[in-house]
């Protein structure tokens, strides 16, 4: 068949040379961003210790709190997401309805409003410490998004596999646990990684609950010293450094996971 060949060359002629995102030369956007960020984080405090070095000294416990909330929330959100994802493809009408309702409601309310709601509105009935409230709110919100990731991941496995598995004598639960989930895992992991970064950034919202995260610590410093420009520059750089490193780790993970597909 000759036609695919001619089609290919024609397409090649008209495609402008856009650099592929996979083309990891030395001068990639990521490398430049990382180098500039690190350089600024080191150079600014070195050249101007007051206020930059003071800001760097003030913020670290905030970084710890941010990580704590992120890791706890994402762990909880993955559990909620798995249950929701399974619930959304369940043939049980009732479970399916509950899971769908949860996703619809949570995705329709802004995270900031959810945080206020769980902390201040429900605070009258359930007295939980601020950190716990923050984690519950973040996990509750991201659980819904994660549920959709899991559902898509499970759906990406050809239904033929379910049929094959059932015909081999597996029941539905075994099919899911031994056949579908181990394969869906590879589709699910990269978006979960992206959600992790998104969640880390969104934890800056919990500063409104007076949780002493990176942003709250920075605002406290700025409110006292009036060094708004310097403080927020430093905060932006710290967040950027963290997300740049994490995004690289996730890109590496993605590469490893897609190993089998590349054969």
């Amino acid at each position: 068949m000759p036609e695919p060949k001619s089609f290919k060359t024609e397409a090649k002629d008209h495609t402008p040379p856009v650099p592929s995102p996979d083309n990891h030369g030395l001068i990639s956007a990521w490398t430049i961003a990382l180098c500039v960020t690190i350089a600024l984080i080191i150079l600014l405090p070195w050249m101007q210790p007051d206020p930059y070095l003071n800001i760097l000294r003030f913020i670290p416990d905030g970084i710890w709190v941010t990580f704590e909330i992120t890791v706890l929330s994402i762990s909880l959100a993955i559990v909620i997401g798995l249950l929701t994802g399974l619930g959304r493809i369940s043939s049980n009408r009732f479970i399916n309805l509950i899971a769908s309702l949860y996703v619809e409601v949570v995705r329709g309310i802004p995270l900031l409003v959810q945080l206020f709601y769980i902390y201040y509105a429900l605070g009258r009935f359930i007295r939980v410490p601020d950190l716990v409230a923050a984690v519950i709110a973040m996990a509750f919100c991201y659980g819904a998004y994660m549920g959709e990731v899991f559902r898509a991941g499970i759906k990406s496995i050809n239904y033929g596999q379910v049929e094959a598995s059932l015909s081999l004598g597996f029941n539905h639960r075994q099919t899911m646990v031994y056949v579908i989930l181990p394969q869906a895992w590879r589709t699910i992991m990269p978006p979960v990684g992206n959600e992790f970064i998104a969640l880390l950034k969104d934890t800056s919202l919990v500063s409104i609950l007076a949780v002493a995260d990176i942003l709250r610590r920075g605002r406290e410093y700025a409110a006292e010293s009036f060094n708004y420009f310097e403080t927020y520059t430093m905060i932006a750089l710290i967040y950027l450094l963290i997300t740049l490193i994490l995004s690289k780790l996730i890109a590496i993970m993605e590469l490893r996971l897609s190993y089998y597909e590349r054969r």
Partner: protein
Amino acid sequence: MLLNLLAFFLFFTMFNPSYAETTIVFATDATWPPMEFVDAQKQIVGYAIDFMTAAGKEAGFKPVFKNTAWDGIFAGLADGKYDAIVSSVSITEERKKAMDFSESYFTVHQALIVAKGSTAKNLSDLKGQKVGAQIGTTGYFALKDTGVEAKSYDEIGLAMEDLRVGRIAAVVCDDPVATNYALHKYKESLKIGAILETGVVEKYGVAVAKGNTVTLALINKGIIAVKAKGLNKGLKKKWIGQE
């Protein structure tokens, strides 16, 4: 479009009767009852608002109040987004380095608000416990080096809410505000535990950008006139309930 807007603006300013008067834009964080807050009609009202309106009448300027979040209110002043801040700003040495202050228009103390059942009389009674205050206020600075775990809130009302549900042990803020919450709004659950001895007399002043002497002179003229006429006594009675 731009031309239209400009024409409209010109028209508006030319036929505005108060054009001859100087307009001074005041930023205020209207979450601080009874000094400045938003009432049910969505108007910014309070002691400080009435005071500045009276001062404007005396000195011949037209005050415009702009509701601004506390966190960043000083940054906005430095950037020239408004002419002055009247938002219960206590005059402190640190703040004087960053901005200029008018004559004081109110004297305050830092009050410690606790739950009804609490016996705390001082910050040292609350060592290791969580105590809240609004971010960047003198109340929050008073928590430093006292052994309590300081928590900074965006608004004082949120700190009060946390105190009411028992997440924190106390809140520190200016006494007029403390009175408003502990003796009126939440009188069934909160009380004023003590007036803190911070060692300095705290006075509210109007803040203007450093070097803005024209605006400062005008505001000072108004404040002094209001005080000389004794108008502030009536305002105290109206908003705080005592002279």
